[in-house]
């Protein structure tokens, strides 16, 4: 299950005593961990465990209150921004533009002017590049897929995905998980925050369990449902 092309033991993400406060609430409490290249990590945990905050800090969208993040050997995340792909909880797309218009604009932010790159990214997630419909008229599942296409269109080395399968039907979600496995096999490092652990089990290299702002365990095995709270199980169902 491990990728081959760009796999190495050098950490792609190195977190050193990462702390994040929102007012007096500590969302992250002293996380020191490393994540190596060519692996697909699935970050799980209850609501409020700090999963999305961790992803935002790693993406450089939120500044840590203490500690540091080193991405691909760089302390300044902006220096490696072209190697990072981020898919947020919201779709991060313009509703008034079509799928291709959205991708063309975001590709331009990475210095990509080639239309075929956008077309390939759309096809990769199972969307038709010729679709003229505006994103505001897309179904939730289509938006999620387009959002994934936006996150990976510049071929990043590190991909951060926050709940990529929310509102996606079971069949499409399985397809997306397979796509993620293929991307990982090309040597990319992927961090996926999701409650749908069963979906990721066939392709995941490691499950990272978070609780109350800390990483409490890392395992090759999917965390048992008993370890999850009722609320997360209900959300998963």
């Amino acid at each position, binding site marked *: 299950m491990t990728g081959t092309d760009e796999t190495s033991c050098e950490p792609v993400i190195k977190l050193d005593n990462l702390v994040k406060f929102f007012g007096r609430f500590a969302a992250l409490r002293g996380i020191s961990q490393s994540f190596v290249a060519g692996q697909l990590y699935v970050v799980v945990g209850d609501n409020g465990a700090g999963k999305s905050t961790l992803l935002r800090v790693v*993406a*450089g*969208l*939120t*500044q840590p209150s203490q500690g540091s993040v080193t991405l691909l050997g760089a302390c300044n995340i*902006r220096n490696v*921004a*072209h190697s*990072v792909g*981020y898919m*947020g*909880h*919201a*779709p*991060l*797309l*313009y*509703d*008034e*533009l079509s799928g291709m*218009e959205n991708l063309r*604009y*975001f590709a*331009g*932010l*990475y*210095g990509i*002017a080639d239309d075929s790159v956008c077309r390939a990214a759309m096809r990769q997630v199972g969307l038709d590049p010729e679709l003229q419909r*505006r994103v505001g008229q897309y179904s939730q599942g289509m938006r999620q897929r387009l959002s994934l296409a*936006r996150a990976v269109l*510049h071929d990043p080395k590190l991909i951060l995905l926050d709940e990529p399968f929310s509102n996606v039907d079971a069949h499409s979600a399985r397809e997306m998980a397979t796509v993620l496995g293929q991307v990982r096999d090309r040597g990319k490092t992927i961090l996926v925050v999701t409650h749908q652990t069963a979906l990721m089990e066939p392709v995941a290299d490691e499950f990272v369990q978070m609780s109350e702002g800390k990483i409490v365990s890392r395992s090759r095995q999917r965390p048992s449902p008993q370890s999850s709270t009722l609320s997360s199980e209900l959300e998963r169902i």
Partner: protein
Amino acid sequence: MLVSSISVTRSTLLKDIRLEWRSKDAINSMLFFALLVVVIFSFAFDPNAEESRRIAGGLIWVAFLFAAVVALNQTWARELRNQVLDAYRVSPAPPNALFLAKAVGNFLFVTILELLMAPLFVVFYQLRSEGPLWQLVVVALLGTWALVVNGTFFAALSIRTRNREIMLPLILFPISIPALLAMVDTTTIVLTGDGTPDFWLKMLLVYDVVFTLVCLLLFESVLNAE
């Protein structure tokens, strides 16, 4: 992978024009607002041609300032829907390119509004220029840039506040007073033909240069503020 500021500015500007063309959020609300101001003021004052020339500078620029605030609030509102601004922030694109594109976009929208509203001002207030007309064009260009460059910056500053529609005029109006003074006085001088507006035009030019540089220097911090 080097990302060119010019190409990002260009593509962001084109994207904003396309979004505005499809939604017409800013233009429609600006036009409606400015139209109301012109009509209401014309009923309220009912001045003769001579009086009109003396007060028109103030009326015109107050109408454009209030109308511009509507467009300036829209500028960032569409970036907050679906949190699209995060997609820009994680990209290697230069923050200043985003600011410049937004400022130039707002400049275009407000200029279009001015072009559409100018004939109405002429008709409703029986305006006729006594001084050289090119000076009115210069003050319109410099004055509009003064409004939108600060407005774009302060609209970005207030996007994360709860009452951003109220916050923007509260911050923008006081800081625009020197520019507004220059715009009103220059317009009045040109319309009445009394004196020369050179001092005010130079002051407006300096104001534009200083505030454009300050906004460009500080925009990255504003964009990444939490």
